[in-house]
């Protein structure tokens, strides 16, 4: 750890907290408010690293992933951060999914 350097503001905050020994217990944010408690694969690859058994077609899983915030890295979180991203779609799977809003991660 001593060879690591903080590269952004959040990492500097972590170092300060550690130096001051003010760490609190880490509690996973309750899904779907925080969307960070689910780490299982299943979007780009299955749990065996392949593509068998994935949702077919991909759109079969798109809205359920967003509504429940199941895969926040792959699909926008429609319950907290991006509630309007699917507004331009009819809701008919595959028909007009290209109307989904494209979101880019914010950088600090």
């Amino acid at each position, binding site marked *: 750890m001593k060879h690591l350097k903080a590269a952004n503001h959040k990492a500097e905050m972590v170092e300060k907290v550690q130096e001051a020994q003010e760490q609190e217990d880490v*509690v*996973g*944010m*309750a*899904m*779907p*408010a*925080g969307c960070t*408690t689910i780490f299982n694969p299943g979007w780009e690859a*299955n749990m*065996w690293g*392949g593509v*068998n*058994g994935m*949702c*077919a*077609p991909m759109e*079969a*899983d798109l*809205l*359920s*992933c967003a*509504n*429940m915030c199941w895969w926040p890295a792959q699909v926008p979180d*429609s*319950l*907290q951060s991006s*509630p309007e991203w699917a507004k331009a779609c*009819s*809701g*008919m*799977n595959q028909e007009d999914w290209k109307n989904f809003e494209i979101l880019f991660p914010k950088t600090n």
Partner: protein
Amino acid sequence: MEGHRKWQGFYWGLLLSLVAFCLPRIALAKWYLLASVHPNNLVVIDTETDKITKNIQLEGRGPSMNIAPNPQNPQFAYVVNEMSQSVAMVDIDEGKQVATFPLSTSGELVRTMAIDVNAQGSRLFVHEMPVKREPGKFAAQPNRIRVIDLKTNKTERVIPAPRQVMALASSKDGKRLYVFSIGQDIFVYDIEQGTQLDSVPLVNRNITGIARTDGLPAWNPYQENNYLLSFGIVTTDSLSGQMTIGIASLDLNQENPALRTSELQPFTAENYNLTGLLSAKTNQVYFSYNNLWKVDPKTRKMQTAELTNTYFVPMLHPDGKKVYCGANWHDIAVFDADTLKPITKIALGHSQTGGGNDLRFVNR
């Protein structure tokens, strides 16, 4: 004598009127399938004709998610709504939302992924995941279960609860609440005392040769299945690491039900399935994901049917004759429960929301 005949006539007339009044109700009582559908709708499907009879638009921004029917008052169903921050009470007969139970307040963002109504129709249980809003951050708060008295629609009590709960189920006598949390054993709560009574081993079954067992009844039509709660499980062999897909069940008619499990098929990328249901009538197991499976848990004999797309859930009709595959697509595929031959597809107009329990049966 004349007076006696008059009274006889009166009583017969009264009896016949009563029968005439009741007969239409008895004749019309049948099973309907409720489906949560985008953007914020509750669809009612007649399972005799497999046609939509009502498409109820709910209030607010939606989406409509988990559904909990009221077994004693099936006119009403409860639907998670408003970005999982409220529960809507819907009058299915009137075709409209009649009440709302908001969960969030100005200081707390509260969401739910699990609700349930007890067998007596007297209580609504809502698992809450509160997050305190503080300047520049959210602070996760201890989770809780809100118990709402459905006679007054007011909170009766709030019970501390585990985190990451995705399903709730009540015992048939109404005394116990079973709480299913990701990666945990099954928690058993005494509703009157508001305390945890016990746990049913699931992930920690302590069986030699089994490293862990994972599964959740995220889709949970147990009340429609004679209070037999069942769900797909994956067990991991502690020596070989091999995984097996199976079925677990809890008979909630019993006071202290034991978890029964049956390992059915290897769990591999080529043999993949997830959501399972055990029929209380036929003792057959159904799985649905990219294929529809019907497995005999005694012989492990399997029938399969292709699906045109992923359907998360096989919802077995309470009479055991049809399987409705859905939960995430813009239609529901209906199959013969015995032969797995396709019967029809019910077009919903919009995709389902994919949340747990977004399909439930009611008898009206």
